């Protein structure tokens, strides 16, 4: 059993690099706080939103796999669990973004008195107020923490059991637990993204928004899982378990989530475009003018059209290195999409600050540090998962 140590060593090295990037990035961003507080708030908000959303995406994907099953979920389960267990920590940078003195005022128009006169905002004040926002923030934190830790403690028990039937029974109980929790999770995350991102423009609303945002971050998490899986695939325990069909499945899922993302994004656009109501179209007007239009077209073409046609090819999905390269590209595209979704109301003219990059890298560095820490403490593949045992068996015959 000396071989897994190679991987643990590799993860420890990545973790050290991540910690350095994290500390430098966060220190630089806080230095920016002294220079330009408004820009700091915008950038910090962007960075913390991305990484919190990534962890939320992991929780969503994890719950989904528990309900629908599939070998692909068993093989990336530890990545999803590690990411979901980092979720509570991502609330710290989010809390800084929202609750630093004056920050809420900088980000959210609904706390500014002049907006309260707007009838489109006035009747939402029962929901959109600092007290309600804070209470919901705590509810999301507690509920999501409970979900992530509860589910991963079940798989810890599964790891320790000696009895095959008991391992299967735990799987069944996790499915029964996950089905209603998936429903509650999608509802809470819908409200979370309403609160955190959609309410940047309080006159505007879209009921599909939460799902659209969440699916984007599920896609990011799936891409990250594939990257890590391929990176670690030359070492035990992945080496003797991974086979071609499962990487092909993951490639197909990438295609599916890319299409769901495009479907939800376009649905929102089409309905808004067809309705053509002044308070609805301003969301798109803001995102198609003053330079933001370039970002919009870049996202449409390079976040959907290009990966869609690439992922149609079987040989891409059957070539792990190629698939992982595409996933790196998709992950970068997610940075751009979240930027386009969250920033135009804050900066009407397209601009990128160095603080955007340091906040994204800094918070991301700490995110990866915690993520690798979670990953290291447990076996990298669940030990008594019936699906993985079957896969290992197939591997021997192949």
């Amino acid at each position: 059993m000396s071989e897994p140590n190679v991987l643990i060593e590799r993860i420890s090295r990545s973790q050290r690099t991540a910690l350095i990037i994290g500390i430098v990035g966060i220190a630089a961003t806080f230095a920016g706080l002294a220079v330009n507080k408004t820009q700091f708030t915008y950038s910090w908000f962007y960075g913390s939103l991305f990484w919190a959303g990534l962890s939320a995406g992991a929780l969503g994907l994890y719950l989904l796999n528990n309900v629908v099953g599939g070998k692909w979920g068993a093989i990336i389960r530890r990545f999803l669990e590690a990411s979901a267990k980092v979720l509570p920590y991502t609330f710290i940078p989010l809390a800084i973004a929202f609750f630093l003195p004056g920050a809420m005022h900088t980000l959210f128009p609904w706390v500014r008195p002049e907006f309260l006169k707007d009838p489109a905002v006035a009747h939402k004040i029962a929901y959109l107020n600092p007290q309600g926002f804070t209470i919901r923030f705590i509810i999301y934190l507690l509920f999501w923490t409970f979900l992530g830790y509860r589910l991963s403690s079940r798989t810890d028990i599964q790891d320790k059991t000696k009895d095959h039937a008991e391992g299967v029974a735990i799987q069944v109980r996790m499915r029964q637990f996950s089905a209603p929790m998936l429903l509650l999770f999608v509802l809470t995350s819908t409200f979370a993204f309403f609160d955190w991102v959609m309410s940047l423009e309080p006159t505007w609303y879209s009921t599909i928004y939460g799902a659209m945002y969440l699916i984007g971050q599920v896609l990011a998490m799936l891409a990250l899982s594939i990257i890590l899986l391929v990176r670690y695939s030359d070492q035990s325990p992945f080496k003797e378990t991974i086979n071609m069909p499962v990487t092909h499945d993951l490639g197909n899922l990438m295609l599916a989530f890319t299409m769901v993302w495009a479907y939800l994004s376009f649905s929102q656009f089409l309905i808004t475009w067809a309705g053509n109501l002044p308070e609805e179209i301003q969301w798109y007007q803001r995102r198609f003018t003053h330079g933001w239009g370039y970002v919009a077209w870049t996202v449409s073409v390079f976040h959907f059209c290009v990966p869609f046609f690439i992922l149609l090819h079987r040989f891409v999905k059957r070539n792990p290195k190629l698939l992982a390269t595409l996933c790196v590209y998709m992950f970068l595209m997610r940075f751009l999409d979240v930027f386009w979704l969250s920033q135009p109301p804050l900066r009407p003219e397209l601009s990128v600050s160095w603080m955007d990059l340091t906040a994204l890298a800094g918070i991301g560095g700490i995110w990866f540090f915690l993520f690798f820490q979670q990953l290291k403490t447990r076996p990298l593949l669940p030990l008594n998962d019936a699906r993985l045992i079957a896969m290992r068996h197939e591997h021997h015959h192949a």
Partner: protein
Amino acid sequence: MNDNAPRTGLYGLMAEFTTPEQLLDAANKTYAAGYRQMDAYSPMPVEGLADAIGFRKHYVSQAVLAAGLTGCVGGFSLLYWIAKIAYAHNVAGRPFNSWPAFIPITFECTVLLSALMAVFGMFAMNGLPQPYHPVFNVPEFARATKDRFFLCVEAADPLFDKERTREFLSTLTAYEVADVEN
């Protein structure tokens, strides 16, 4: 081949296996021995079996892509022609070429033609439906839909020799090797 002529003689030799692993192993060995004209029959999909018998290239996916692109371009062109050329109506001041509104139909046409091509293209390239096939002349073959796995090496293969092929097949853990009459 003249389809009206009575079919006579040997169609091939069929080896029967009890597990999918045996079938896969046998298919690999038969292919390695140089046989190309063969087919495998199994009650359920066996991963890697198509590759093992040398069935690597098929054109269904290309045909589906072509049909999908045709549906995409056709659907969009149809709506463009209707909305801009044939029945140009001003709808709430929007441009005639209101492309966002065309996308759902374009998408549906893409899916429709792709799906039709996937089903009928598959049938056409499979040679299905096939009312008569010699393998059914082997009584044991009825179990191919239940619990047995078959590999048939066809007489049309240049390497085929009744005695030597039979000898070869019997080295492959086959449960039984049967003649398949035309």
